């Protein structure tokens, strides 16, 4: 079953068209990585998928329900009210710079929205939060504040926060770009563990080897279009000149 379908997405910032007719879909349990140079639009497509940006054309469908579509006059119509809430509860997003709430403890960061937005039972939410923290190796940090944690720990809290909402699909927007190589490994391990549990994920990343290892499918984007979309092995043995050039630069680095 398709969790997410994005069809013929267009997105412009003023005159600048950053997403040019992109279509992609993600099936349940699938892990999709999106790679590409800076400014290629890969973060923007993630922000469109998570409703942080409004699209200028195309349609976004979660679990068969239209979150946004373009009518016959070319106007984009977004789902509203309870329907929008229901659709938005399907996905979570892990930000590049964590965006934890600094005035809330680790535990409150994770449990506040499940309790006060989803109106779930407190005991059940706290139990789930403790399980998640244990999985992240942070159970002893439950009462800490974000400013007392390292970047890697903060990012793990933000992953736990997203997971505690029980999303069907989790998006990662360059989750390791603000971290040093050691902390990056911490986060990649967490994502790897989620992959083993068949969590559906879309990962925008610059970690090429990681993308190759963890994904079922990779999209290479440049200048707002999908250059190539294939399996990791095919991507890294691609005949496409542009793909080869981009990946080659990373090989030379390492």
């Amino acid at each position, binding site marked *: 079953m398709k969790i997410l379908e994005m069809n013929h997405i267009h997105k412009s910032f003023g005159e600048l068209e950053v997403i040019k007719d992109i279509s992609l879909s993600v099936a349940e349990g699938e892990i999709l990585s999106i790679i590409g140079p800076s400014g290629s639009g890969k973060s923007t497509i993630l922000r469109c998928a998570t409703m*942080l940006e409004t699209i200028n054309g195309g349609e976004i469908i979660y679990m068969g329900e239209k979150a946004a579509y373009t009518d016959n006059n070319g106007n984009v119509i977004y789902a509203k009210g309870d329907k929008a809430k229901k659709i938005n509860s399907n996905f979570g997003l892990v*930000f590049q710079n964590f965006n934890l709430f*600094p*005035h809330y403890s680790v535990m409150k960061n994770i449990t*506040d*929205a499940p309790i006060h937005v989803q109106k779930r039972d407190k005991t059940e939410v706290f139990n789930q939060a403790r399980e998640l923290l244990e999985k992240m190796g942070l159970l002893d940090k439950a009462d800490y*504040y974000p400013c007392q944690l390292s970047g890697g720990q903060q990012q793990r809290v933000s992953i736990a926060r997203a997971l505690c*909402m029980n999303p069907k699909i989790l998006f990662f927007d360059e989750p390791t770009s603000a971290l040093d190589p050691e902390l990056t490994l911490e986060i990649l391990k967490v994502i790897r563990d989620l992959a083993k549990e068949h969590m559906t994920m879309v990962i925008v990343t610059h970690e090429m080897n990681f993308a190759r290892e963890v994904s079922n499918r990779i999209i290479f984007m440049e200048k707002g279009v999908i250059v190539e979309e294939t399996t990791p092995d095919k991507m890294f043995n691609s005949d496409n000149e542009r793909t080869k050039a981009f990946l080659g630069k990373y090989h030379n680095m390492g």
Partner: protein
Amino acid sequence: MSFSTMLMQLSSGMVKSMGIFFWTIILSLPLGLFVSFGRMSKNPALKNIVKVYISVMRGTPLMLQLMIVYYCPFLLFGMNIRTFRFPAIIIGFTINYAAYFAEIFRSGIESMPVGQYEAAKLLGYSKGQTFIKIILPQVIKRILPSITNEVITLVKDTSLAFSLAYMEMFTVAKQIVAKESTFTPFIVAAIFYYVFNFVVAAVMEHFEKKLSYYR
């Protein structure tokens, strides 16, 4: 007049000064928050009206504003304003301080990183929840030093109520000075204001410390 009588009179004036202070704080802080919403509104008409209001409040003397608020009901409607003195003072102080507080709130709200709103949106918080639970607590921490500044100024500004012959401490002190030909009441009044502000500053510092558990 004995020293103790003078102290008694000044103390009762001090109570009235504190009345102006507390009423103004209680009313002008919430009003200032709402004014800041108007100042940041996307509606250009509302935004410009609020801009003019803030500009006038900051651009004219508070003493003059107090007089206008007090005498206007009489000049415009011929109302009897004898019992209107205290309400006029509170209204005058409140609308003046709300303008300053509004700009402080605006600076705090606009300094919040957009990521906090985005994280809240992704977690499904409504706009109201986002503001009350996520944004406002962090804004208060950021603006507390500026609020302290204004609050301390307000303690001293209560003395401007003398212009409406309201019997707060400064008015009382001036009367005793004139009647008894002694400078002592001014010294005592200065000490009273200073002690009051010392306490106010200590209380505000306590709030700041309480909020220093995070960065």
